[in-house]
């Protein structure tokens, strides 16, 4: 299968740089799969599992927080606040941040706090589900 250059960058580092055959990401509208030769495309990502295949059959999964995916002629770039391989996720930390978000949601503060807590809960749940601990 044809491959393309995939690059995943976060403020912390260039998380991944290499050849890939397919990448599956989740945008606001739903899952999209990108293969080599995709039309130029840009879409925001929601906190979700990002699946990458280097050979077309096996997929590696990583948790992304909000970000953006950008497909150009022969390469795809993912920019995200944070990306972690499923096996590297700090489950305890994710649990803590989930509990904190749930507490804040239960406290029923203002709309803004609610929205922030909701975002945090989404991120935490995403990390937990990617790591398989949910």
């Amino acid at each position: 299968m044809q491959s393309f250059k995939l690059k995943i960058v976060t403020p912390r580092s260039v998380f991944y740089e290499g050849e890939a055959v397919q990448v599956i990401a989740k945008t606001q509208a739903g899952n999209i799969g990108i293969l080599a030769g995709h039309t130029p495309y840009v879409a925001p990502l929601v906190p979700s599992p990002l699946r990458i295949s280097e050979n077309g059959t096996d997929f590696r999964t990583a948790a992304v927080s909000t970000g953006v995916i950008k497909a150009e002629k022969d390469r795809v770039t993912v920019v995200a606040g944070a990306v972690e391989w499923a096996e590297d996720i700090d489950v305890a930390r994710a649990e803590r941040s989930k509990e904190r978000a749930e507490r804040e949601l239960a406290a029923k503060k203002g709309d803004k706090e609610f929205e922030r807590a909701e975002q945090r809960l989404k991120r935490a749940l995403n990390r937990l589900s990617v790591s398989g601990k949910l």
Partner: protein
Amino acid sequence: MATANMKDVKRRIKSVESTMQITKAMQLVASSKLRRAKERALAAQPFFETLYDTMSDISNDPAFKSVYTKKKLLRSTLIVVIAGDRGLAGGFNSNVLKLAVSHAEELKASGDKVSVIAIGKKAVEFFEKRGYDVISAYPQVAENMDIYDAEDISEEIIQKFRSAYFDQVDLVYTTFVSALSQTPVAVSVLPVKDLGNGRKHSSLTEYDPSPEEVFDSLVPQYLTGLIYAAVVDSFASEQAARRTAMESASDNAEEMINGLSLLYNRARQAMITQELTEISSASLNDSQ
């Protein structure tokens, strides 16, 4: 008299020596922290470039409009000030705070309402004491800043920006030029402007769901990245400033020790000479 003086000098040498030990240790700690901070600052570069490129691509579209690019209507500005958590870093804190105050006064003079978000303990204390409208304070985040901390700060700014608490956001922090030079800077962050490279053209890129929505979802991330980078940059500057300050303190201490040792040796020599004179004149008196 000579003996009392010698004791004093000896005590001073001891005290300067122990101070020098502390400044030397601080210098070493700052150097190693500086190295790590520089790496972090460097690692954030590609993230920025990609986001910035994407945003400027979108804004090149002629029909493009966004709440984040609209012109200033209200006269209300938020200043995000980043300073250190600790002192003993030469002019680091006072330089950046001085710039922040003069920037705020300038805005006030032109009729703007000014509010402040203070990052770093020194900035928090400074602005609270001076009666500024500090809408939130984030002390002690710089050293272990991670992207989620930056996200919290940027979410707060975005929400207040969107609900029109203010319509301009400026960032005041210290940028790391070199190990010897750190400059405080004030940069305008929101509204987003000067993005396009001037060429207006509609691109063939497909934006899902629309260029505006992609852009609007990028801005908070861009801001998060900016804040993260500024904090990391400022932290690197703080360490560099502290290292330089501690280096010159150690040098000064060494100079003082040298001077005092000279004094001590002189006093000792004078005492010996005096004793010799006394003994020899005494023996001279005896033989007569």
